[in-house]
């Protein structure tokens, strides 16, 4: 993380506030805090804030606010909250049916890592993963914190169509495909939860930047029952707020 953040111009309608040039959780927590603070201030002319791993993009209408005025407002917001970035954790439980028809690449991952399927599941569900950002497609989350022993490179030949909900591994990353899309991640399971729902305008994605994801192994029967509840809008995802500093490592 930089000692002092950098303002980078990105055209006539976007200003990038850069906190780091690497994946850095502290920088990410800080920029999530800045985003909350700025949103609460309702700065005139701002269209939206987009947090990424290490920066906050501020999209604005240059007819309504100047870049100089924005930098000033951001500077003022930064001074208004302390350096403590550890807030409570918002944890979302994500049920996953692992292996078999749900995870066609489980064998690949097992071969590459030298771990049996049960051990892969134990490790994948054993650590909470932090959502740094959403991007790529609607609702796709970039998660960090997967057990290093599960690292597996992407497929050599990406699939043309991966069903929504598929949970995969790509190098050190893990995550779930939010909509049907092409992709090259090694698929180890699938969640029955609806990750992207455009009819819910306030919260179209299940996961928000800054959430912690706790993968929970479910049987194929549980998968199907949750899937049918989720499809009819009756399933309420399990969420919890846990105290700061409780670095829970399960298993």
């Amino acid at each position, binding site marked *: 993380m930089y000692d002092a953040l950098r303002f*980078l*111009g*990105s*055209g*006539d*309608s*976007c200003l*990038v506030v*850069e906190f780091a*040039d*690497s*994946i850095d959780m502290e920088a990410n927590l800080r920029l999530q805090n800045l*985003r909350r603070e700025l949103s609460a201030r309702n700065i005139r002319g701002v*269209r*939206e*804030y*987009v*947090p*990424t*791993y*290490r*920066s906050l*993009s501020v*999209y604005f209408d*240059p*007819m309504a606010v100047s*870049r100089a005025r924005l930098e000033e407002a951001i500077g003022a917001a930064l001074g208004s909250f302390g350096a403590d970035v550890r807030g409570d954790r918002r944890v979302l439980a994500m049920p996953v049916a692992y292996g078999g028809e749900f995870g066609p690449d489980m064998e690949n991952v097992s071969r590459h890592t030298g771990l049996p399927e049960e051990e892969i599941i134990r490790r994948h569900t054993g650590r909470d993963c932090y959502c740094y*950002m*959403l*991007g*790529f*497609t*609607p*609702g*796709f989350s*970039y998660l960090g914190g997967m057990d290093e022993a599960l690292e597996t490179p992407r497929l050599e030949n990406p699939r043309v169509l991966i069903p929504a909900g598929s949970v995969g591994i790509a190098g050190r990353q893990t995550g779930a495909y*939010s*909509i049907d*899309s092409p992709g090259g991640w090694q698929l180890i399971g699938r969640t029955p939860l609806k990750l*992207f729902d*455009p*009819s819910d*305008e306030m919260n*179209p*994605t299940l996961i*928000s*930047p800054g959430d912690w994801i706790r993968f929970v192994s479910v049987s194929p029967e549980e998968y199907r029952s949750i899937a049918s509840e989720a499809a009819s809008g009756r399933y309420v995802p399990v969420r919890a707020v846990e105290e700061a500093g409780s670095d829970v490592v399960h298993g």
Partner: protein
Amino acid sequence: MSFTVEKPGVMTIVQDLGRWGHQSRGVTVSGPMDQFSLRTGNVLLGNDQNDAALEITLFGLEIVLNVEQCVVLAGADLNMRINGAPAPAWTVHRVPRGSRIAMGGMSGDGCRSYLCFSGGVGVPLVMGSRSTYTKASLGGCEGRALKSGDVVPLNEPRPLWRRCAGFACPPELRPTRVPSEMISAMDGPQADAFTQAGMETFYGATFTVSNDIDRMGYRLDGPEIERCKSPDIVSDGIAHGAVQVPGHGRPIVMMSDRQTTGGYTKIAVVSTWSVARLAQRMPGGEVRFRRVTEDEAVSRLAEFERNLETLDDMRASYRSRAHWRFEGEVI
């Protein structure tokens, strides 16, 4: 109130000014490739600037109106015909129910145009917008391009809509008037990943639009841009008009359906005005970049806003003088 699609053309989709407010959830803004043409078309009709229209690419669209309407084609001149007769672009046409509106083809000033209707296209709002984003099947007509047989809803026309009939945009207020203008750009957030020579190539060379273009991005052919740092960065936001330069050294300008985030270095960002100008170019078209300051880019936008206000005033006075043409008719 609706129209029926007889022939969908190469690609025709519904667009308003975009789905703002959801990029943090990975949902791109979409919106028109040439927002200035769409907004001008809406102002000609007395519409809200954000009213949805049909974005027509290249040629071939043919529709039949199931209701009387006022329409205008704004953007590239696609040789529109109404019931077989030539109907000039940038002019409001009053069209009886049952009329057939057809696009002939390009005439040299661009490849995208907006067919605007009084009151706008009435497809449902999805996450606050009617814009079509085909990759995620969002908005528009079931999230896809129009196809034959579609019956597309239209909104209630705006008050006094018939009185706009015959009103035309003066040539000097048309955003497409200089098809070959230089493309303004500002140094991007990773301009320091390129050598001095690389920057000179970008701002000095002539590029051509490749065959690989869509609503997501425009790949350009031309000399390789020299770099001094890795082409990959830890992903961050991609602004409209951002110019990514991946490992192959050739620029890709990110357009309306761009991904919200990405991991390639961005040498420059095209000005909001010029992104729309670039969007009118076809494969093989020339592109030359001109380095501008943010202030210069913003003042071009301000000029457009002033032009649009002028046009809005002209339309209002045209409409108020138009009552004699509709004597005895209830409007």
